[in-house]
């Protein structure tokens, strides 16, 4: 590589700051352009007068010019003051952090399921390319891919919770029960739902990357030198297939960590996705904007981290 790792990171960071500005501006303007605007929440209250409404608008600075409001909000963002919820006046940042734990838990659990499932499916497909089991894997993949998440979630709830009582139908934990086993039981169904539908995505990548590697000359060399098949898969095919997955994971991970809207809703999972939907429903603009900015930051941080990790892990990229 021509430029050093530091220069690369610095350049990327600069681009990222610009992108964040763009996201914040777009998000801010969009939410102010929605019917009712930021005051919608208050104008619906019974007994609300125009006078009182103007008072509220004044106290919250909503009567100031839009650009000034934006600059103030942006300044707050930078100082760590992301505003306060219209609902309970709690700081937006602490609300998001409070919901983050549940989302991270679900996101990582589903990532483990989808990644391991995809790895197995992709490797089987690549190693047995063209055979019946390869076709079976692609068929299962297409079926999983075309399952709507909400439907799969409802099916799980019906068969594994309502009918059998094996798993709880939703929520993070049973009230008053803080045991790990109870949390795991609550985690099982949403994690399976979210994990299963992503298995074919990882499977397709692994199948393609592993297939490419298997066709390379150095695999033939290893075989001609008597290296056993399992060792070739473990030492040569797997690392070669995993390396290009790092930047892809960097793009995928933030979509998990900014909340799985559908799954969290179906399983009443108190994560960031639910928080975003709720805040939109309540016209709680500071929170909605906060989640939006939080997701944007996550996307940029994850993709930057993934690229740095890729550089560190792939000896070919190290100059």
């Amino acid at each position, binding site marked *: 590589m021509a430029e050093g790792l530091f220069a690369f990171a610095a350049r990327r960071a600069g681009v990222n700051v610009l992108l964040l500005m763009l996201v914040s501006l777009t998000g801010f303007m969009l939410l102010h352009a929605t019917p009712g605007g930021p005051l919608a929440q208050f104008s619906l209250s019974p007994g609300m007068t125009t006078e009182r409404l103007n008072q509220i608008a004044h106290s919250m600075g909503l009567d100031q010019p839009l650009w000034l409001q934006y600059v103030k909000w942006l300044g707050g963002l930078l100082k760590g003051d992301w505003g306060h919820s219209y609902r309970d006046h709690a700081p937006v940042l602490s609300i998001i952090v409070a919901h983050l734990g549940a989302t991270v838990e679900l996101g990582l659990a589903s990532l483990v399921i989808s990644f391991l499932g995809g790895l197995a499916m992709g490797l089987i497909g690549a190693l047995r390319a063209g055979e019946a089991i390869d076709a079976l894997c692609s068929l299962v993949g297409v079926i999983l891919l075309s399952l709507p998440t909400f439907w799969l979630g409802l099916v799980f709830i019906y068969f594994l919770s309502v009918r059998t009582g094996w798993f709880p139908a939703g929520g993070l934990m049973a009230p008053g029960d803080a045991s790990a086993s109870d949390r795991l039981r609550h985690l099982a169904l949403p994690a399976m739902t979210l994990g299963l539908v992503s298995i074919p995505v990882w499977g397709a990548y692994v199948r393609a990357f592993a297939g490419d590697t298997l066709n390379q000359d150095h695999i*033939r*060399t290893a075989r*001609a*030198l*008597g*290296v056993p098949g399992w060792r070739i898969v473990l030492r*040569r095919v797997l*690392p070669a297939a995993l390396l290009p997955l790092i930047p892809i994971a960097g793009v995928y991970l933030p979509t998990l960590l900014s909340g799985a809207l559908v799954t969290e809703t179906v399983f009443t999972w108190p994560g960031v996705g639910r928080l975003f939907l709720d805040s939109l429903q309540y016209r709680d603009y500071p929170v909605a904007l906060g989640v939006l900015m939080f997701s944007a930051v996550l996307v940029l941080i994850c993709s930057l981290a993934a690229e740095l990790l890729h550089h560190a892990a792939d000896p070919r990229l190290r100059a």
Partner: protein
Amino acid sequence: MTLLAVRDLGVDFGGPPIVDGVSFSMKRGEIVALVGESGSGKSVASLALMGLLGRGNVTGSAILRLNDGRETDLARISSRERRGVLGRHVSMIFQDPLSSLDPIQTIGAQMREVLSLHCGLRGGKAQARAIELLHEVGIVDPQACLKLIPQRLSGGMRQRVLIAMAIAGEPELLLADEPTTALDVTVQAQVLRLLLSLRARSGMGMIFITHNLAVASSIADRVIVLYAGQVVEDAPADAFFAAPAMPYSKALLGAAPGIDSVFGARRLPILRGQVPAPGERGVGCRFAPRCDAMRPTPCQTQMPDLLNIADGENEVHAVRCGRWEELAR
């Protein structure tokens, strides 16, 4: 002492045979050049000898006599036996050294893998042996080389590393599939000299697959010419380059650029046409359509046998041509 006896080796992938009744034998420490154009079946034959093709695709036998006196049939080897044979008794080096090493493992890691598999060496002992092997193949700074990934090495150095890995298990037979084709001419000569010196030291036999007759003449004890999947001439190198008997061999030798043709003393004669595809072969001699000495009979009507035309009792100079006697006069 016979090292390898190949009898009636055939390879097909469901259609007409790619390799068709190939027989030859070679002695311990002998270097045999397997010569032919693209499509002659030489690479497929070598993969069959390595047991790297499906057993259902290979017919015939290829008996390898190991140093300990045991015999094994490379054409019918099970995948379990194969792992015990490959790298330890038979090794192979390939045409493209640039892609024949794992791009993301260091040279050291790849060499240690082979050394632990075939010699049971680990840790410091494997490291020491790897350095010794790299030194043996002419790598100047083996210690530094072990820490590098293949990308940092030149083509010639990569081929040396591959040779070092191939001889790590001290095999009796080395198959070399066009190992110098992808290299610069000067590097080519170095690698050929290296292979000759390794043979002199270890006495391993070598099957050297090439389409380059100049390369064959500089390394081979015997030359076997393949055409359309068949052996058409099998001769000691001296006899072959002095007086090839098969018109195809003559044409190949004529088409090889030498010093005089490079300096414009004569134009290079061109061997017209190309090797017929497996499905397009006639009943007669497979070279007949391109042969200047072709006569409708017997050339187009009858497949000539591979005849031994050597004078001596124990010599082999076999040729597959219906008119070799007339042409020799």
